[in-house]
């Protein structure tokens, strides 16, 4: 590097091209003058000089090119040099102010860490493309019965193929304890539609259903490793599925799971021959299609609706009505999977974003304070010729170094946070991709670091490099007014953001409390549930089912401490929804080929169920052992059901029917409404049927006990395997846990909002405290004068408190305004409170005002201890 050359260049700046010209012309002129002095005429002298010089244009061009290159290289070098200098300077500066550095880095680490952790969840759940081949072409298709599936698959042109599947609990037995696994029953083409081949062996490819090769199973990587010890010769082996021998066709690659990440095995649908009426009675399936390249989602949806119009009358069981299929939709797989989760996660991302902004405001404040103490240094540097740009850049480098340190610590915070989040995340949030800190997330963090560093650094840097004259002339006092105003603004903004988050958190907490107080209509405390899934090959007919459950119930009822036992086919608020059923109602809707009214829920129960669950009987009677096959068909309905169809009269003795031609069923009892799918449900119409009359294979035992669940569950398992060793029992859960899980999403949002609101308050308090302490320190002289002139300590205290109060009030007002608008975004998460709940909007500002005053109180007290004489002598 050539220092003199550099100094020159900076001085002359941009006339590098003119310089080349000057230098060469000087040479020609001198040479010509020489020739002239030797006696040549002027023009001849000039010609001779040119001749002697050679190719002027070529030399000129060569020099220009050379200088350009050199300038670029020098610039690069200079920038790097300065950057190195700035970095050294920044690190030295931070080492010299360890308290400042620690507070700033900790604040940033919290903000950046929280954002990184939440982003990693958002990325895995919402943003990352699903791990399937061209996932954007895979769509969900409205429809649920196999009848619809078969016809749509034949008729549609938009999809290259359609599959039908449903999640199911599948029993695996033999070689060890019988166990119940999350699995899926699917048409064989599911894997080819998703475009994922098996890792070993093969997935279903063609027509396992049509050729009658029903007994084939595909395993997940996890199941293969766990249960079969990663046996390399697994393909072709026979395993016991639902008590029947199934041949293992293949093992899917690690990480593959569909419809959920926990799906462990897939078996083909046992489909009756096409075009039989039976297909239309097999519902509960989801349809998945791979769009042809030329088809768009909206075109496909249009075709789908038209097709539903065509197949409307093919359903041999009932007429689905003129509106059938009018609202059929086609949605991209990812959109369908993440649907409602996306809103919640984006809200959360917004919340941590606000936390980060607060953190930025805090650090900006600290930097402002620091800038004041360094004003003289900056002023001297500028007076010595440092450009403003250069100084801003140097101060920004310091901010970026801070941000980078914050980022590194933030990744550590996120590393812990991601684990916690993964644990808290409600089970129904789809997780087809694993959540963790990967390169994508770290890239996001890096962007965040640069953005935050610039954000909190820019303002103080610009401020510090302006108006440096006063600090050269005298102390830093003249600057502090402007700094304090800016700092005050930042603190108000922090308070506003804190109010916003605390309002949101309070609304959610109030919703959670309201949900907790909801009476589900049945007893929760002291009730436990255990799902029973007998092997289908052994418990084949109705008699066997009745017999099994009679014996199970008798055996469990005899356990010590068990007060009552019952069974239900689908547990309210359990993992799977309690499906509804269309009903005929005598005298009101009798024609099964017409559109029939729906009961929200349809439950099959044993006589002991209602009393075990304390579901209040309002009229008539409960089921008894006499309600058995051969006896008249009976039903119990919920209060809302009775009100809906017989608003004036009595439902007892009225008759309803299945949605196909069958005997009438007499209503013998009316019970209170119960919440079956969610605590938010209103006025649920439910139909109960006695298990003995409509037996089914999978039931959930419910029992009421005064004992703790955990010691009981061992006895329960032994009792059940004592009745039949091949009957697997799922986890035995307490009803309170089940009910809590049903609002897990709510709780997840509430906990996190509360956590982040707490952080926001803490940062806000630190902000106010910092600014007020600083104000007191800076105004010592003023306070001293006032006190010397007779102001009491109370006056001084009041002055500081008033200033802190003003900042808080401005912030709180802005925060309330924002919250009133933004809280609407919470929409679906709220229960029992409105988005502008007056109590919340009164309580939060009051509470935060108190907190803000407390934060200013400590510095205010310090103000009263100012000794006038010392204060006046200072500086």
């Amino acid at each position, binding site marked *: 590097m050539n220092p003199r*050359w550099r100094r020159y260049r900076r001085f002359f700046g941009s006339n590098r091209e003119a310089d080349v010209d000057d230098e060469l012309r000087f*040479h020609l002129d001198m040479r010509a003058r020489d020739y002239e002095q030797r006696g040549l005429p002027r023009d001849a002298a000039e010609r001779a000089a040119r001749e002697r010089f050679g190719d002027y244009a070529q030399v000129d061009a060569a020099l220009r090119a050379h200088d350009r290159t050199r300038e670029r290289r020098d610039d690069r070098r200079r920038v790097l040099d300065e950057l190195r200098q700035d970095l050294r300077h920044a690190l030295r500066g931070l080492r010299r102010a360890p308290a400042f550095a620690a507070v700033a880095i900790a604040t940033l680490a919290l903000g950046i860490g929280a954002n990184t952790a939440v982003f990693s969840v958002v990325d895995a759940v919402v943003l990352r493309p699903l791990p399937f081949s061209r996932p954007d072409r895979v769509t969900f298709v409205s429809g649920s019965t196999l009848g619809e599936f078969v016809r749509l698959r034949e008729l549609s042109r938009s999809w290259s193929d359609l599959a039908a599947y449903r999640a199911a609990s599948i029993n695996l037995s033999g070689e060890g304890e019988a166990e119940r696994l999350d699995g899926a029953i699917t048409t064989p083409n599911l894997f080819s539609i998703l475009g994922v081949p098996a890792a070993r062996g093969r997935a279903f490819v063609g027509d396992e259903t049509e050729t009658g090769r029903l007994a084939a199973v595909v395993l997940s990587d996890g199941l293969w490793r766990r249960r079969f010890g990663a046996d390399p010769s697994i393909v072709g082996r026979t395993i016991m599925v639902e008590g029947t021998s199934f041949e293992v066709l293949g093992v899917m690659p690690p990480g593959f799971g569909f419809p959920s990440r926990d799906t462990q095995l897939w078996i083909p649908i046992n489909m009756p021959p096409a075009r039989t009426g039976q297909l239309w009675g097999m519902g509960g399936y989801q349809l998945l299609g791979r769009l042809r390249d030329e088809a768009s989602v909206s075109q496909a949806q249009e075709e789908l609706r038209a097709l539903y119009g065509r197949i409307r009358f093919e359903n041999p069981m009932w007429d689905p009505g003129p509106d059938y299929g009018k609202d059929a939709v086609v949605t991209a797989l990812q959109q369908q999977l993440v649907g409602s989760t996306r809103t919640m996660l984006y809200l959360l991302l917004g919340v941590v974003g606000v936390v980060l902004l607060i953190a930025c405001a805090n650090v900006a404040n600290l930097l402002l304070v620091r800038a004041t103490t360094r004003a003289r240094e900056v002023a001297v540097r500028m007076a010595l010729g440092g450009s403003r740009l250069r100084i801003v850049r140097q101060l920004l480098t310091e901010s970026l170094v801070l941000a980078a340190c914050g980022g590194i610590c933030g990744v550590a915070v996120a590393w812990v946070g991601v684990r916690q989040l993964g644990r808290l995340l409600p089970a129904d949030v789809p997780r087809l991709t694993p959540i963790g800190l990967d390169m994508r997330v770290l890239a996001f963090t890096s962007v965040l670091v640069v953005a935050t560093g610039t954000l909190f650094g820019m303002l103080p840097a610009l401020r510090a490099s302006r108006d440096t004259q006063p600090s050269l002339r005298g102390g830093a006092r003249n600057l502090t007014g402007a700094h304090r105003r800016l700092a005050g603004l930042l603190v108000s903004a922090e308070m506003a953001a804190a109010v916003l988050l605390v309002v949101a958190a309070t609304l959610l907490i109030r919703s959670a409390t309201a949900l907790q107080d909801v009476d589900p209509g049945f007893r929760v405390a002291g009730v436990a549930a255990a799902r029973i899934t007998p092997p289908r090959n052994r418990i084949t007919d109705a008699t066997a089912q009745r017999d099994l459950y009679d014996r199970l119930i008798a055996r469990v009822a005899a356990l010590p401490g068990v007060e009552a036992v019952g069974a239900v086919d689908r547990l309210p608020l359990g993992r799977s929804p309690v499906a509804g059923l269309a009903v005929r109602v005598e005298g009101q809707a009798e024609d099964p080929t017409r559109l029939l009214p729906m009961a929200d829920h349809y439950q099959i129960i044993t006589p002991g169920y209602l009393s075990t669950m304390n579901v209040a009987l309002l009229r008539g009677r409960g089921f008894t052992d006499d309600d058995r096959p051969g006896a008249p068909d009976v039903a119990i309905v919920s209060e809302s059901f009775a009100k809906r169809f017989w608003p004036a009269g009595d439902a007892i003795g009225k008759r309803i029917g299945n949605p196909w031609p069958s005997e009438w069923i007499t209503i013998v009892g009316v019970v209170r409404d119960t919440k079956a799918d969610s605590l938010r449900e209103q006025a649920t119409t439910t139909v109960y049927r006695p298990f003995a009359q409509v037996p089914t294979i999978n039931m959930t035992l419910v029992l009421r006990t005064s004992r703790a669940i955990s010691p009981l569950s061992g006895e329960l398992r032994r009792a059940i395997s004592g009745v039949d060793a091949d009957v697997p029992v799922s986890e035995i859960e307490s009803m309170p846990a089940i009910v809590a899980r049903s609002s897990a999403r709510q709780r997840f949002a509430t906990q996190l909002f509360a956590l982040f609101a707490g952080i926001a308050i803490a940062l806000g308090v630190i902000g106010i405290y910092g600014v007020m302490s600083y104000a007191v320190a800076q105004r010592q002289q003023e306070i001293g004068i006032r006190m010397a002139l007779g102001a009491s300590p109370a006056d001084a205290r009041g002055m500081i408190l008033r200033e802190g109060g003003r900042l808080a009030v401005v912030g709180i007002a802005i925060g309330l305004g924002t919250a009133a608008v933004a809280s609407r975004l919470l929409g679906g998460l709220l229960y029992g409170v409105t988005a502008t709940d007056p109590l919340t909007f009164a309580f939060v500002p009051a509470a935060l005002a108190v907190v803000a005053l407390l934060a200013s109180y400590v510095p205010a007290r310090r103000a009263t201890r100012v000794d006038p004489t010392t204060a006046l002598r200072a500086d």
Partner: protein
Amino acid sequence: MSADSRDLLQGTLAILILKALLGGTSHGYGIARWIETTTDDVLRIEEGSLYPALRRLEDRGWVTSEWGLSENNRRARFYTITSAGRTHVRGEAAAWMRYSAAVARVIGAEPSLI
């Protein structure tokens, strides 16, 4: 001109320029005049080629340049040899001496061969 002889010429030119600057700071024209006088104008170099050569010397850190005023009060660029340049020119000059002495010996010893 072949690449070899241009390299030779460039190397020669570099030596000449550095040698010229050993006498003191000078602008490009001054260097040209020095070469002209010292060699009795035997080499008759194209003076334009001095400047790219000076740039290359500058890049290698053997000379530095600075704008100043010429003897007739015009703005001119002055070149100064650096200590690295001095070291270099001493080494090169020694090599040249050996080389030319060898050539001279060959030419003087075997006149019949010419």
